[in-house]
């Protein structure tokens, strides 16, 4: 029963990792861009939620109403103002510019909020739990987190395959020149994709901030978790990112049980094993 509990907790944490991964996977799918600042943007969303909850005195989950549109707006502006200039055949500019952005966000947050670790208080849901029989209980927060992750991924899947915007995303992803020929404005499509990606980042950031302590330096590790979930799940597959996130979460939970120092390491090892035996990921959709 102890192991069932550990694996269950791992699965639920995996929902959060899937949300880190979904935003990353989305922009890679649409514009072949890997945003190295992704993790730092998650942390930025967490700090934004902190400011909103402290000034308005509202519940962190209610702060989503502010943080999600704000992050989407930041994403749109970032893509139009900066990242669109880096896109082209050369891999170097987008990588270096997003890497620079990562350093800027990290050090900017450090200047504004110091290196102290912070946390959002959500009025008890972070400690509440639901009993599922003897010795097996799930926390209310991880359950909300997982449900939100499934909802976000289902939403993205629906948006990609059932809406005009999703059609524009897929068209641009398949052939940029052709998409332009049929009247799509690539720059605008990219900006909308980044806005959507950062909207997901906002949800992930707020949930992260309720779940654990955060400080300006934790961004890169979140980028890596998201990236590992994307690669393990298989490039281009939204439900694959959920599977990847769950595998990562379970691997970390098992690692932590063996030795606390092995928690993160076990996740990395699971990733390297998948890369070694099945480099295309478990549920690949596209080659790339």
């Amino acid at each position, binding site marked *: 029963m102890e192991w069932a509990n550990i694996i269950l907790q791992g699965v639920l944490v995996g929902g959060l990792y899937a949300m880190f991964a979904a935003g990353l996977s989305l922009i890679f799918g649409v514009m072949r861009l*890997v945003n190295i600042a992704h993790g730092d943007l998650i942390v930025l969303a967490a700090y934004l939620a902190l400011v909103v909850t402290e000034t308005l005195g509202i519940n962190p989950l209610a702060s989503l109403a502010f943080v999600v549109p704000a992050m989407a707006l930041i994403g749109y502006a970032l893509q139009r103002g*900066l990242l669109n200039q*880096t896109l082209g055949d050369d891999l*170097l500019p987008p990588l*270096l510019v997003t890497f620079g952005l990562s*350093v800027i966000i990290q*050090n900017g947050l450090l200047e504004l909020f110091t290196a102290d670790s912070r946390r959002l208080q959500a009025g008890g849901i972070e400690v509440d739990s639901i009993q599922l029989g003897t010795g097996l209980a799930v926390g209310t927060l991880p359950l909300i987190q997982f449900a939100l992750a499934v909802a976000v991924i289902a939403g993205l899947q629906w948006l990609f395959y059932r809406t005009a915007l999703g059609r524009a995303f897929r068209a641009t992803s398949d052939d940029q020149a052709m998409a332009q020929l049929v009247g799509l404005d690539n720059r605008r499509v990219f900006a909308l994709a980044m806005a959507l990606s950062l909207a997901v980042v906002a949800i992930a950031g707020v949930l992260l901030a309720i779940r654990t302590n955060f400080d300006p330096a934790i961004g890169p590790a979140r980028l890596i978790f998201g990236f590992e979930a994307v690669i393990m799940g298989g490039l281009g597959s939204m439900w694959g990112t959920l599977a990847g996130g769950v595998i990562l979460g379970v691997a970390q939970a098992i690692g932590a049980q063996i030795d606390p120092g*092995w928690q993160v390491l076990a996740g*990395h090892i699971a990733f390297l094993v998948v890369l070694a035996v099945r480099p295309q990921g478990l549920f690949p959709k596209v080659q790339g």
Partner: protein
Amino acid sequence: MTAFQVEHATRSSRIGLAVFAVLLVVLAAAPWWGGRQDLRLLAEIYCFVALASLWNLLAGYAGLVSVGQQAYVGLGAYMLFAATMLMGVHPLLAIPLAGVVGAIVALPVAGLIFRLRGHYFAIGTWVVAEVFRLLASQVSVLGGGSGISLPVGIVTAMAPSRQMREFLIYWLALAIVVLVLGAIVLLLRSRYGLALTAIRDNEIAARSNGVDVARTKLIVYVLTAFGTAMVGALIFLQKLRVSPATAFDVNDWTAYVIFITVIGGIGRVEGPIIGTIVFFLLRQTLADLGSLYLLMLGVVAIAVMLKAPKGIWGYVADRFGWQLFPLERRLNIKAEAPRGTA
């Protein structure tokens, strides 16, 4: 057959080499004209020139944009401590040993992360660095997560007096930077260099002309790991203390190195040298700003990447046609030679 020979040198590269030769003599004599602070600063500059030149070879020429070279800096550092403390190797011998271990480790690592393409390769290198860091914190004989200092006995075995040790480390740093730059120039002048330059300019065209792109990239990756691990060992021989957080620091060994190369001029041998000089000039004046300094460097690097992607040296080289190293290839066809058949 037309008789021809390939000329590498130009007038500016001859001047450049002459300047470097004079500079080398002056710098090698630094213990006689500089104070302790000067020696420390210069040694640090050499290490950054070496790290940035290696990263430039990797990213600027082979197109392998790594944000995880701290993996090899840290590996080199830990090899130095492991070899001297656990195996009783002399510190000076431990530095090349660290390089060899770096190269050996790079082979299986490359086997894994070369499966990731383009952008994802970059994050893959970061994962590897994180794995190395977490593994290093598990090694309790080397201090685990909190790190360890080099025992006094090993330090004094290098040279009995403190002054001689400082001179020795200074000369080692100078030797390593000369070695790294010399090796890069020789590599670029060889047929691998031609292949690398072709890959830099257009990977598909290079492949269609018969360049074995994958093999060339692997060679560069392993050579870079060798050099980076040696520099890492030397840096921590100077610091005398190692911990997972400092040895595998992404800001110190990757962010600074990337900014230096981008600002100086990526894809040119001179770039990292110019970039390091700019970096240290800025640091000497803005050091008090702390994290704001890193933030400003990030802004400058982004601006350079967008507005002048070839960096400072790229601008100078395009404008004036200068090159400091004899790397150009110019065909010199002898007039008296018999004409070849068309």
